[in-house]
């Protein structure tokens, strides 16, 4: 059923060779192939994953876009209607952070409702060799504060922070009152104790609404 219905559209943006595809591969399939030669994405690839937030199911529809400049003109196809954008930059390439800023501006201009997550990639390379770091962490957090975004540094090779990133995305979506209509209760999981089902009354109400609408997860 993956792909047939999507609650939360997530788009990955950023400079080519920035590690977007690896990030999605790690998250969706929990794999990383260091031997495989670099393959640039053509157009955009789509993948979906269902996650639980506060006992509710959110289907993340993830668009992994190509970083090449020629797709810039048509990037709107991919980010239009996105609820969240993971703007990736390579921690070992300062140019990629400049590119990330370009995307943030593009999103602010065209998709106001889209939450932005700044994602530094290839953290393992920086941990191996401190000198490899080209993007200063504090600089990124300062910038993030300015644009009301969050920063997370990840490594697709080790898997560090990858799930956490997408959990943040899902939580940000599910807990946003603006998305009430689309979030619904996870009715088929009785093993989850009711205490953890919802964190506050508002969310619970959301789940009730979702159920009454018949729901879109089957």
């Amino acid at each position, binding site marked *: 059923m993956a792909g*047939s219905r999507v609650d939360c559209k997530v788009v990955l943006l950023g400079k080519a060779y920035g590690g977007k595809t690896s990030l999605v591969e790690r998250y969706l399939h929990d794999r990383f192939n260091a031997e495989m030669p670099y393959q640039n994405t*053509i157009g*955009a*690839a*789509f993948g979906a994953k269902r996650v639980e937030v506060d006992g509710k199911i959110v289907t993340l529809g993830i668009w992994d876009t190509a970083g090449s400049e*020629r797709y810039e003109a*048509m990037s709107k196809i*991919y980010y239009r209607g996105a609820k969240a954008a993971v703007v990736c930059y390579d921690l070992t390439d300062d140019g990629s952070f400049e590119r990330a800023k370009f995307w943030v501006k593009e999103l602010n201009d065209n998709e106001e409702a889209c939450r932005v997550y700044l994602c530094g990639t290839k953290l393992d390379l920086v941990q191996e060799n401190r000198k490899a770091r080209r993007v200063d962490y504090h600089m990124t957090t300062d910038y993030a504060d300015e644009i009301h975004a969050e920063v997370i540094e990840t490594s697709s090779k080790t898997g560090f922070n990858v799930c956490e990133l997408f959990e943040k995305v899902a939580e940000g979506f599910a807990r946003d009152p603006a998305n009430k209509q689309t979030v619904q209760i996870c009715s088929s999981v009785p093993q989850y104790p009711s205490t953890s089902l919802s964190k506050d009354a508002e969310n619970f109400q959301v789940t009730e609404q979702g159920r009454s609408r018949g729901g879109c997860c089957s």
Partner: protein
Amino acid sequence: MAALTEPTLPVQPLPPNDLEEVTPDDLVEEGAPGASEDHMLIAAESYEDINVAIDEQYHRGKDEKDKTKNEIEQSARELSIDDRSTTPSDEGRETPKEEVSSAEGKDRSNSMLGNRDRPQHVEEECYSPEWRQRQKHVFILSEAGKPIYTRHGNEDKLVTTMGVMQALVSFVQDNDDNIRFMIAGSHKFVFLNRPPVILVCVSHSVCFFCFHRFMIAGSHKFVFLNRPPVILVCVSHSAESTQQLLLHLTYVYNQIISVLTFSQLSKIFEKKSNYDLRRLLTGTEKFLDNLINLMDRDAMFLLSAVRCLPLASSVRDIIGQSIAQCKAKDLVFAILVGRDNQLVTVVRMKEHSLHPADLHLVFNLVDASTSFQSAESWTPICLPKFNSNGYLHAHLSYLDEECSACLLLLSADRDVFFELSEARQKIVTRLNKYNCLQAIRESLAKGSYKVAQIGIPDLRHFMYKSKSTAQYTSSELEAPYTEEGERHRLFGMYQYLHHRVHNSARPLKILFHVGSKETMLGWITSGFELYATFGPLVTKPAAINAINKLLRWIKKEEDRLFILNSYTY
């Protein structure tokens, strides 16, 4: 097929030169094997594009008058790549030297943009012996002389060489003429000028013929193709003819159009004539590389036809029906392609047909990238023959875990990804229900057919193109053509045969070529093209007898080897 049961060609020994007098048309005029009224694909003639290119004249402004003859002479010196020559016999054709040294391979990955920060004074690539010994070079440059692409090496290191090529092109244009190709000893340079870009192919080649307008410089032949706003040049020392090299350049040009569209390409250069096109082509080198490599070994480009995956017609019907039933809005084409560029089926909108040249680019897209194997993809693609100024939007996905068949759903609407994704899911369910995917996998695993199955002792290999359906079939390559060098040599022989029978100055209907390693027969009728390889000792009557037998076999098998009826939306 009553006509086929009677051997209509003389089986008695023919006088040596009489073979070309034979008119076998009565054999095939009606119902050539694999013929069909169905217009799934546009029946394409070999070289049709090139003829257009030759007819087109681009009279351009003379703002570059100051290129002097001295520069041209210097250019000839600089461009001379290798002085080795080959003899025009099948013996002399060299096996390709395509092993990329690891150093260069690494360099290549940095190509297109990655190395912009490098110092300007890099040594020109053309001084390195490995680079010079390459069998075929392809260069693309803008009309302003900026490098866009090189097949071998790094285009950043070829700034001077490309500048010289640009000078050559504009020098000839000053005389209201267009440079097409140039012979320099054993090398052939083919140019394709598509302002604002120039494509060049250099190949170390045996020159079969010369046509009007060419240049000889030292020991190399250049072929030029002018496609405003691009110039393409080919420098070759392979077995191909000038027309074949022009065909290569046309495909390379179409590949660029497929990525950018013609309107976008011309707009960019109208705005800024010295634009660095590599910025927009980042990531597409692999498609250009793969396309050029494919053209060196796959006959589909040469024949202007596609090869179908052999399938029982009942299975193919179910596949066609299943796809046709899962409609989606504005779906123009659905293409199912098996591994190794074998077409399973095409379902199309009633009023549209696909051109084989467009289908070749689709095959190349699937063939060149593994990135479609992991997820459903959604990408714009321009099919130059269908509409060179606009994009179609392609939903790409493999239908099973083994990645045996890739389904492309091409729509005019950019917002229908999820509709197509749903349609794709329904198609997969149906195909699994009727075991069609299993049948595809089995056919792929079995490969093509062995020539021994046909039961003709002297026949080693053949290629048969049905003209009306633009499809071809060929037997598996078996010993002695299993080794790479021999395979390459045989392909060169087919290119030679194809060149001879399609020679515009003196087209042949039938050609019997006796070589030291094999005997070959080329036969063109209004319904088909046939190229066959026999052992070296076969006689003409035996070969013709064998061909008649072969045609009967193809007729018998045509349902399996060709797509004779297609489905429409």
